[in-house]
């Protein structure tokens, strides 16, 4: 029997039909939707006069556009209010479960899916959002799609997709203290560039990956798109199964142990071949920070900004333009650079372990006066857990206000915008020009690095807080 990769096993078992010299018709097990990329898709269904084919396999949330304070009040911004309202109406009309603002299950789509047991090994999962790759942490083929494809899946529960190539990224060795999964993925992207994996689907493997918790794995898979990959997955194992056993319920599954037995085959066979393989030594990874305007422009926290994007050639105009936007220069060190804002949250680092990590550093200390902090839990469940574990109290005592769940400052569709020219250390996933607000200067980092910056008011090495 041919040795197959996990990706091929899942892909091949979901093909409804193959078009000669064309894409595959792929069946989708789970379709997540939110308010920003769905309205035009529903308009399309109305124009065609057809229903949603499988509403029970669709789950909706409001996350991108919503405020993170005073959620009990009506949304002030008219367009946002209208968009969320539209999703609510569409879900009611088409029979789709909707976790709107104030619903106890509400939150960022890629946080609530896994925590509520909707994301399961072996599934194909799509959503009109590029960070859908997050769900790959459970051993799924999960990827972001455009609104036309959202309409396709609503109409037929299928999508037309060309099959990407496969790359395996292996991380072995031992992680240093103070180095997190966020640093791992930022390191990889800085090594291969923001377009280094375009056209590929990633499988992450190796001892460093195996030892990560589910939430840490989600951070890694989340940022697969930032190296251009379609998505990334990690084969399920006991860590995955234990996480699933702890879910309050799992839709569609009565006996989890029976499913666990079936999932045992969800791994790449020995000898299975990938189109490309890369290896990294986890021991070399330090806390990371970005200095430019794409996630590939990152370096170790104690490093110096390079002279150019390639070791052997002069800096391109794009590279220099990027540094100019950031108000930084080649050769500069970032340690000690003053910052203005700190944001912890997003589908990358908005889960309970991230807030625990941040709390470890701020406990018994105070937020720097010069820093404005945005503390945004990824979901209502995370918000509740923060309170019940006493974390909210720790944040409050250190001078931090915990907000309510939403995508918030990651893409700043709501009021949580970073002002022109201000530096923000953010645990989110993109540092593009203007991403967090026109003229905003984003420095991507892990929750530990963000906490260190929040306490000191300058870019700091979080390792100094560990003995």
């Amino acid at each position, binding site marked *: 029997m041919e040795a197959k990769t996990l990706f091929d096993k899942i892909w091949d078992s979901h093909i409804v039909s193959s078009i000669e010299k064309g894409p595959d*018709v792929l069946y989708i097990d789970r379709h997540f939707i939110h308010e920003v990329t769905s309205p035009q898709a529903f308009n399309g269904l109305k124009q065609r006069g057809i229903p949603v084919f499988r509403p029970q396999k669709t789950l909706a949330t409001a996350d991108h556009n919503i405020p993170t304070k005073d959620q009990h009040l009506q949304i002030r911004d008219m367009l946002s209010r209208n*968009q969320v309202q539209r999703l609510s109406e569409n879900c009611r009309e088409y029979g789709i479960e909707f976790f709107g603002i104030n619903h106890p299950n509400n939150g960022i789509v890629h946080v609530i899916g896994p925590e509520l047991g909707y994301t399961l090994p072996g599934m194909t999962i799509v959503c009109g959002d590029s960070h859908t790759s997050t769900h790959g942490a459970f051993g799924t083929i999960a990827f972001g799609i455009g609104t036309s494809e959202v309409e396709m899946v609503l109409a037929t529960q299928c999508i037309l997709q060309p099959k990407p190539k496969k790359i395996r990224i292996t991380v072995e060795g031992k992680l240093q203290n103070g180095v997190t999964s966020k640093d791992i993925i930022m390191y990889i992207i800085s090594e291969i560039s923001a*377009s280094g994996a375009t056209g590929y689907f990633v499988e992450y493997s190796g001892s460093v990956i195996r030892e990560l918790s589910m939430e840490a794995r989600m951070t890694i898979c989340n940022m697969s798109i930032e190296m*251009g990959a379609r998505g990334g997955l990690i084969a399920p194992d006991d860590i995955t199964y234990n996480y699933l056993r702890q879910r309050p319920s799992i839709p*569609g599954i009565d006996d989890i142990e029976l499913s666990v037995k079936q999932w045992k085959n969800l791994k790449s066979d020995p000898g299975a071949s990938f189109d490309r393989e890369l290896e990294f030594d986890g021991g070399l990874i330090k806390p990371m920070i970005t200095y430019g305007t794409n996630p590939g422009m990152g370096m170790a926290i104690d490093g110096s900004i390079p002279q150019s994007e390639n070791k052997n050639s002069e800096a391109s105009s794009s590279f220099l333009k990027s540094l100019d936007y950031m108000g930084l220069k080649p050769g500069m060190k970032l340690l000690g650079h003053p910052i203005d804002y700190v944001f912890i949250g997003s589908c990358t680092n908005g889960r309970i372990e991230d807030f625990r990590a941040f709390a470890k550093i701020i406990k018994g200390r105070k937020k720097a006066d010069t820093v404005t902090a945005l503390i945004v839990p990824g979901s209502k469940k995370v918000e509740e857990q923060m309170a019940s574990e006493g974390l909210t109290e720790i944040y409050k005592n250190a001078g931090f206000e915990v907000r309510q769940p939403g995508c918030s400052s990651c893409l700043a569709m709501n009021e949580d915008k970073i002002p022109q020219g201000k530096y923000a250390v953010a645990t989110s996933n993109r540092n593009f020009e203007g991403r967090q607000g026109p003229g905003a200067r984003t420095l991507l980092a892990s929750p530990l690095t963000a906490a260190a910056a929040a306490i000191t008011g300058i870019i700091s090495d979080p390792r100094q807080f560990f003995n």
Partner: protein
Amino acid sequence: MPKVKFEILKSTCVPLPFENVDTDQIIPARFLSATSREGFGDNLFRDWRYNKNGEKNSEFVLNNPAYIGKVLVAGKNFGSGSSREHAVWAIFDYGFRAVVSSFFADIFMNNALNNGLLPIVISEKLLKKLLDLIQQNPATEVIIDLEKQTFTVISTGDSVIFGINPYKKECLLKGLDDIDFLLSMKDLITGYETNKSMLK
């Protein structure tokens, strides 16, 4: 539902000699609150077209009357970042019908093909030559023939074959709709569900 057809396009070009142009630049997130597909062209490259005070940035190419055309020529890794299809709608609504680069991000390319905006991949070398040519002579015209898969620069005679998925090519040439195609496969889909679906 019939869609836009693409056959032969002869046009002047608009040069965007920047690499890694991401979808946040093409259409900033604050403009994604719309509930229909229309009007995105107004906000194409919004934060590059307009200064903070709301005035047009005279240095940005879209505000330079010398450059008009239906073909956008951009530096490598165009369209990286978000899956927002709104980026394609903005480019199309503005009036472009093709984007030429040496490298496109995956999701953007898919979204473009689904909306009648043709993404054309040419070599880095030809891209540089073309950008230089256009900037020297804004009247530079190209011909794109989808049937023959040729991209030709009229004044120099440079002509290359570009790649495109055969299925997508046929959809674009005939104005075929993916969803009509999938809807016609309903029996196959329910058959699949009965046999193999995970959650019954």
